[in-house]
């Protein structure tokens, strides 16, 4: 062998059942150096890390998704088969992570791997828990039964890792030989289970009685999966989760927005006036800010979900919601994406990865943007203030908007389930792992992984969208209107002071209005206005709808600019009263009851967020689904808004 070959790292694949501490082992072995990447021949992102064997051998560690066996047609089994049988990157050693407390069931997958003639090192994890539960495993006897090295470890406390590294190193130099009594490759799970039960009985001794920990788990489960108490616990946990998410994420989000705002204005001051300055200060900085501002929410959300999952509660919560959501064709796990989407649909859609079944996950992703996200909030505030001056009715209308979005999402899920995505959600069968203190390290690394994945893929798309939308709403440049020129000339003759700056500001506002109207988006608004005529939208409202595709809250600043004021995005009394005074070309009021209500319903239901469509495209791997999402939601919004307007007109409202 040449030295060149010896320099190649050993390729080690981590396999194991779910909830056996495989991720913890991966994290303690590879730490921060791990990256998430697509493995050749698979479409699923896997975590790949590097470590050493304690000798001069380097190890490349690939973390498989948790799986129970290789025979099923589950996505996990397919991914595992793809990695294990990869011809481009053959694996040298499989480290099978086995939960010492659940030896027999874990031996099924171990047996399958051995029967395929692979070099297997068994990492017998959670030895501490096993000992505490009175379970004793004869390590030497197990190694003899499996004809493979068995290393007892406690991944959480980094115990036994050096021995594991050495075992991997020496296993790579041996020839695998399957144990004699093992059923041949391709045996049924029942046959393997019988073998596993036999082996387990020979090497393990346990005090038969359920331990106090078991009884406690059983007792807790009786409450947290109870139809009533379970719901109370669920609501409390979710309120806690979202309170934490919104409170903690808002701080870095504000800082990020302030920093980028500052960066944009200092660039504007430093660079000469011109298209390059505008592209940098508004387009690129705006695009960066619009992408990075989502990061704190995404990282924090995945941190919290990882904690909940690790603690064992998430599996119980899925059961609490299963009965309620299955009526609408959604699986129990869909509650996480749907609730998260009330903050922002982007992390919501990303969290749909929790749902194992592809059809179920797809339906959840498609309906998630119906949930009223925080970007709709300023628009709701504006339109509801126009509709209901009485705060009590405004509050009712607010709740109504959230309910309308939620109901539309659930009913759509049901509709898709009986048409385009036929099928019922899988009735749930789920392992209920023992309750544990969640691992902070695992949660931090999960947050980091998700944040990086978001930046790498969605980030670039969102940034591109932001730049294009900025360009469409700023170009072509139009000459300042005569009125603005007159004002500027007038200001030039005035003495410096408050009166002069007022006149100058008025000129800027008139110019902004003209440039908004003359831009591509503005012209497109003019052209497409007839389409929105049944909803009562004039060209200004149509432009507002167009610009809000960048982000819904832009609607407020667009309307404010078109009214002739400054482009503020804060909804205060002044803005509301100015926008209330907006008129159509013929001088009649624009925001009548019927038109405002139609616009409100439109905003609740319409798919008006290009970044969300980009994330749907990424998570579903096809342009078909974002197209379907956009077409369906926008048509529904259009029809519903038209019905509301016509209904109100017929009822005698203006």
């Amino acid at each position, binding site marked *: 062998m040449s030295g060149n070959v010896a320099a190649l790292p050993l390729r080690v694949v981590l396999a194991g059942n779910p909830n056996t501490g495989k991720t913890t082992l991966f994290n303690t072995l590879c730490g921060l150096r791990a990256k998430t990447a697509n493995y050749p021949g698979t479409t699923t992102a896997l975590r790949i890390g590097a470590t050493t064997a304690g000798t001069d051998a380097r190890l490349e560690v690939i973390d498989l998704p948790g799986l129970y066996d290789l025979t099923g047609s589950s996505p996990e089994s397919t991914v595992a088969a793809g990695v294990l049988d990869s011809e481009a990157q053959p694996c040298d050693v499989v480290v099978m992570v086995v939960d010492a407390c659940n030896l027999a069931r874990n031996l099924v997958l171990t047996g399958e791997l051995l029967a395929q003639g692979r070099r297997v090192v068994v990492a017998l994890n959670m030895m501490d828990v096993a000992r505490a539960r009175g379970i004793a495993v004869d390590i030497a006897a197990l190694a003899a039964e499996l004809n493979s090295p068995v290393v007892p470890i406690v991944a959480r406390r980094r115990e036994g890792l050096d021995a594991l590294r050495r075992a991997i190193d020496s296993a790579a130099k041996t020839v695998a030989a399957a144990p004699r009594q093992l059923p041949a490759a391709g045996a049924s799970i029942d046959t393997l289970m019988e073998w596993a039960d036999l082996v387990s009985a020979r090497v393990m001794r346990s005090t038969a009685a359920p331990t106090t920990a078991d009884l406690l788990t059983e007792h807790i489960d*009786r409450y947290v999966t109870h139809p009533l108490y379970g719901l109370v616990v669920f609501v409390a946990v979710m309120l806690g989760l979202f309170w934490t998410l919104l409170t903690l994420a808002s701080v870095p989000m504000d800082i990020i927005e302030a920093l980028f705002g500052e960066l944009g204005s200092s660039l504007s001051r430093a660079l000469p006036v011109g298209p390059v300055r505008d592209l940098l200060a508004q387009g690129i900085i705006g695009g960066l800010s619009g992408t990075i501002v989502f990061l704190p929410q995404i990282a924090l959300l995945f941190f919290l979900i990882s904690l909940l999952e690790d603690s064992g509660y998430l599996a119980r919560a899925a059961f609490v919601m*299963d009965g309620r959501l299955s009526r609408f064709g959604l699986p129990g796990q869909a509650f996480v994406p749907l609730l998260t989407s009330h903050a922002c649909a982007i992390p919501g859609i990303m969290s749909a990865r929790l749902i194992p079944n592809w059809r179920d996950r797809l339906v959840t992703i498609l309906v998630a943007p119906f949930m009223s996200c925080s970007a709709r909030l300023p628009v709701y505030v504006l339109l509801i203030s126009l509709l209901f001056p009485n705060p009590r009715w405004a509050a009712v209308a607010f709740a109504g908007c959230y309910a309308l979005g939620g109901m539309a999402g659930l009913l759509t899920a049901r509709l898709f389930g009986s048409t385009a995505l036929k099928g019922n959600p899988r009735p749930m*069968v789920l392992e209920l792992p023992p309750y544990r203190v969640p691992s902070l390290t695992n949660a931090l690394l999960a947050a980091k992984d998700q944040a990086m994945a978001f930046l790498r893929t969605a980030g670039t798309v969102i940034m591109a969208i932001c730049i294009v939308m900025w360009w469409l709403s700023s170009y072509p440049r139009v000459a300042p209107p005569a009125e603005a020129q007159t004002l500027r000339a007038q200001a030039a003759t005035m003495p410096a002071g408050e009166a002069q700056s007022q006149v100058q500001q008025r000129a800027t506002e008139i110019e902004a209005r003209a440039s908004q109207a003359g831009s591509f988006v503005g012209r497109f608004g003019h052209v497409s206005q007839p389409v929105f005529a049944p909803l009562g939208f004039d060209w200004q409202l149509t432009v507002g709808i167009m610009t809000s595709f960048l982000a819904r809250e832009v609607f407020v600043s667009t309307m404010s600019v078109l009214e002739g004021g400054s482009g503020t995005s804060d909804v205060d009394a002044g803005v509301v009263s100015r926008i209330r005074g907006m008129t159509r070309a013929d001088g009649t009021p624009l925001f009548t009851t019927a038109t405002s209500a139609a616009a409100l319903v439109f905003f609740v239901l319409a798919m008006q967020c290009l970044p969300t469509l980009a994330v749907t495209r990424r998570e579903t791997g096809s342009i078909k689904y974002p197209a379907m999402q956009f077409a369906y939601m926008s048509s529904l919004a259009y029809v519903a808004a038209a019905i509301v307007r016509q209904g109100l007109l017929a009822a005698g409202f203006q």
Partner: protein
Amino acid sequence: MVPRVQTPSRKLTDLEVGATARMLGAEVDAELRTLLRSLGLTDNSPLRVCKRGEPCVVQVRATRIGISRRIAQHITVVPDAVGPAPLPATR
């Protein structure tokens, strides 16, 4: 010694909390049956009912499995003749 009597098969959902039984079969589609097997509910494996209702929770070896009622009612088991008290006749 108590003689072992052949007990008839019952639905999993009919068992009381604490009852032990052996897995007989499940009238569910192949994918679900595979999933149940993967979790350890292979033919003839011993199980214990931890919770009734929605979801039904059973313990198989050291694994606790939550099973939606819609599936649990299609699972048939053979209750252990010797062991915890038989089911009450009336409810």
